[in-house]
């Protein structure tokens, strides 16, 4: 017997694999084919004369731990334009606070001529509130909100922040020991800016949950890779945040780069490592706050508003990064001036 059931809570390519592999383990099912496009799963198996509703209920129990449920009726995917009534002012408020902070001269608060671990920590706090927030914070927000939307709240965040702290410690030590920095030239920074801007723009659009066409470009590992990986969807949710966390060491942020130059001048593994670690720990409170803002959101009425606000903020940061990238290579005259 062939049945088609509608899947509620399906977002990603990896969901297809999780649903299929879970369902196939059920002895009653001989084959299962999930479709992301139709948000449905086609199953074949022996259910006797069970009504479709009971089948859906029984199989939902297997999938519930992953955050999916099977229903007979199609989920009404309301775009909830009403959410924007709150999301737009909230996003504007957040961005206004961000601009105000820059105008108030937050970066001028650093007065230290010499760097101790304490000042490195303090500089970290200031860096996390500076325009670097548009790069690193924007990336954190887009990533954590995207993972939260897929139902994975805690682990990706911990992996990201853990990866960031460890990479700052290790790479800081390396540049201190070898006495050479990983400075990027103008072209590399431009390419990075472009890449980060593009990724953030796509994630931001996805978070708005209005244009479904952008789903195709989601931050996922291709299906043919994840199919061969052991933990099906685990790869995407483990490796991505970890790698992004490590990569933040190289992201274009003035503070990170001058701290690296300082760490390089310290001329030793431990002093370089500890300086960069102190800096990264300084950036942690604000970044953690950003990433765990999506942590508190449960699938309630507020979730839609939160994801739309996050999407708008992420898109604004993406535009900021892209425009600045074009300014640096001289393609357009300076736009922002803080």
């Amino acid at each position, binding site marked *: 017997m062939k049945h088609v059931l509608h899947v509620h809570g399906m977002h990603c390519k990896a969901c297809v694999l999780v649903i299929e592999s879970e369902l196939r383990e059920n002895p009653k099912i001989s084959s299962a084919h999930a479709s992301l496009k139709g948000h449905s799963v086609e199953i074949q198996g022996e259910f006797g004369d069970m009504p479709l509703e009971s089948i859906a209920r029984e199989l939902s129990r297997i999938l519930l731990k992953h955050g999916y449920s099977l229903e007979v009726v199609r989920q009404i995917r309301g775009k909830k334009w009403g959410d924007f009534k709150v999301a737009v002012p909230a996003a504007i408020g957040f961005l206004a606070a961000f601009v105000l902070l820059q105008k108030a001269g937050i*970066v001028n608060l650093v007065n230290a001529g010499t760097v101790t671990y304490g000042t490195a920590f303090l500089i970290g706090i200031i860096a996390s509130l500076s325009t670097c927030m548009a790069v690193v914070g924007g990336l954190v927000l887009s990533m954590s909100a995207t993972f939260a939307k897929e139902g994975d709240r805690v682990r990706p965040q911990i992996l990201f922040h853990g990866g960031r702290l460890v990479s700052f410690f290790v790479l800081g030590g390396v540049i201190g020991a070898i006495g050479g920095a990983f400075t990027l030239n103008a072209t590399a920074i431009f390419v990075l800016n472009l890449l980060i801007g593009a990724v953030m723009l796509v994630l931001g659009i996805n978070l708005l949950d209005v244009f479904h066409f952008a789903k195709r470009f989601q931050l996922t590992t291709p299906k043919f890779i994840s199919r061969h990986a052991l933990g099906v969807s685990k790869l995407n949710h483990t490796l991505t945040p970890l790698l992004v966390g490590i990569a933040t060491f190289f992201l274009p942020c003035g503070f990170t780069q001058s701290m690296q130059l300082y760490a390089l001048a310290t001329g030793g593994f431990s002093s370089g490592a500890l300086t960069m670690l102190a800096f990264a720990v300084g950036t942690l409170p604000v970044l953690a706050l950003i990433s765990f803002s999506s942590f508190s959101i449960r699938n309630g009425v507020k979730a839609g508003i939160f994801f739309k606000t996050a999407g708008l903020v992420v898109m604004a940061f993406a535009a900021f990064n892209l425009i600045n990238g074009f300014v640096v290579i001289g393609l357009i005259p300076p736009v922002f001036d803080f």
Partner: protein
Amino acid sequence: MKSTVISIAITVIMIGGVFMLVRSGSEQSGVLPADNVTVADGRQIVELRAKGGYLPEMSVAKAGMPTILRLETSGTFDCSSSVRIRGMDVSRSLPPSGTTDIDLGSPEPGTLRGSCGMGMYPFEIVFEK
């Protein structure tokens, strides 16, 4: 809702705390003398203060004269510590504190535009005949 309020409160306290903590240090005035362009021994020196942007943002200098761009830093860790000048292929990292001289050669009349490495702090020097 409760956690939202708590998060906002923590943010405000943290930002306020940083301002309080560091404000207690001496607040330097961000004003440079109006004539930041000086000529000595046939060389023209354009002085800029680099911290949270470049001051003054616009300078006027003479064209066709050996020119040095002197950048002063004091506790500069932000973007302004990495200077880029378009069209001249200048890309320098400044020390947190000190002065850095960049040789601009003898510029043609026109406007030289520079910015920090990430592009949000611009400055320009107008070279006049």
